[in-house]
């Protein structure tokens, strides 16, 4: 099951190439992502906002805080403002979309595109399943700190066990390496789960004798 040296080198070279391409600074990309996310998020949040209860507002960092050139990831950041008129609690959550969504997806895409899985729809299955799972993981990266800050800001109350669970979840997602390790594990599991079984017939274009090439 271990790859041969030349296969491993080819895979690693392709992965590095794709990953570098995804990390080339693209002017406007962060701002586009954060603008779209804030528009979608604001629409979704309107369901939770009422005239007398919790008020939530989502906007891009430049929109909410004003442009700050010293903030390195400002273009990728959306800001969630929450206010609870009943309890008087108020808090502001900065959500960095680059670290919660873009980087894990870039790692996963680079791994998937570099893998020899692009036959008979396998690559597409890996790609779509992986993106779905990473969106869920990204949602967790947003939700856990948001709930923690809501609790600290007096927006919501949590039972003792829920505080413990939140601290545990936060400790799990906080290490910077997790942003890169999770897409790697997701990719490995999906590539393994979709591997061709021994009983699967060869693709017709390989069945003529080129299968060992």
């Amino acid at each position, binding site marked *: 099951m271990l790859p041969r040296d030349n296969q491993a080198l080819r895979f690693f070279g392709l992965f590095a190439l794709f990953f570098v391409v995804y990390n080339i600074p693209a002017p406007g990309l962060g701002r586009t992502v954060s603008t779209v996310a804030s528009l979608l998020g604001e629409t979704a949040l309107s369901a939770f906002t009422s005239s007398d209860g919790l008020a939530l507002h989502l906007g891009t960092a430049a929109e909410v805080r004003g442009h700050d050139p010293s903030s390195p990831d400002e273009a990728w950041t959306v800001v969630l403002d929450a206010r609870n008129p009943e309890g008087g609690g108020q808090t502001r959550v900065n959500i960095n979309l680059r670290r919660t969504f873009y980087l894990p997806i870039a790692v996963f895409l680079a791994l998937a595109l570099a893998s020899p899985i692009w036959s008979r729809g396998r690559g597409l299955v890996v790609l779509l399943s992986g993106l779905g799972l990473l969106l869920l993981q990204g949602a967790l990266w947003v939700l856990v700190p948001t709930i923690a800050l809501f609790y600290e800001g007096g927006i919501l109350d949590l039972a003792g066990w829920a505080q413990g669970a939140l601290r545990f979840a936060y*400790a799990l997602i906080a290490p910077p390496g997790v942003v890169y390790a999770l897409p790697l594990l997701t990719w490995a599991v999906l590539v393994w789960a979709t591997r061709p079984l021994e009983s699967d017939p060869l693709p017709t274009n390989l069945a003529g004798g080129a299968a060992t090439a």
Partner: protein
Amino acid sequence: MGDQRAAFRFALRFAAIAAIGFALYCFPYAESGPAASWFGAYLSAYARVAGSMVAWFEPAVTVAGRSIVGRSSIEIVKNCDAMEVLILFGAAVLALGAPIRHSWVALVSGVTTLIALNLARICSLYFVALHWPRAFETIHLEVWPPILVIVATGLFFVCARWLSKVTPERPLAAA
């Protein structure tokens, strides 16, 4: 079928060992309990080792608790020890199911290499904070973490190859 069972066993063992490692490390221990004191002492020791490495290049640097203080300063907190990478690497090596004496050699060699790399990371971050403070966040969160994950993955494959060579009579779970 044998290969598939072996890979499945590897995945299960890996998930179980990693889950135990992360549960122990991330458990919300009481803030004034013995576990918190132990973590405090461990992080202070980490800071002392990293501080002594920084002192090779900047002799005036001092270590106060978890902080390395000189012309710039950085604090060692719980995630600075790259434990997530160590746990995943350790779980993967142990999940191979090699005899314990060989696994132990692979584990200690790999973990030592990763800790050395992480100490180099902390030292470099001290100098990045000093000379290029605007680049600190990017190098801290976007340059070093993938390097650690890639090196750990590479080390795992090296260990897996070595273990499959030294234990040819006993096929490894993922080899």
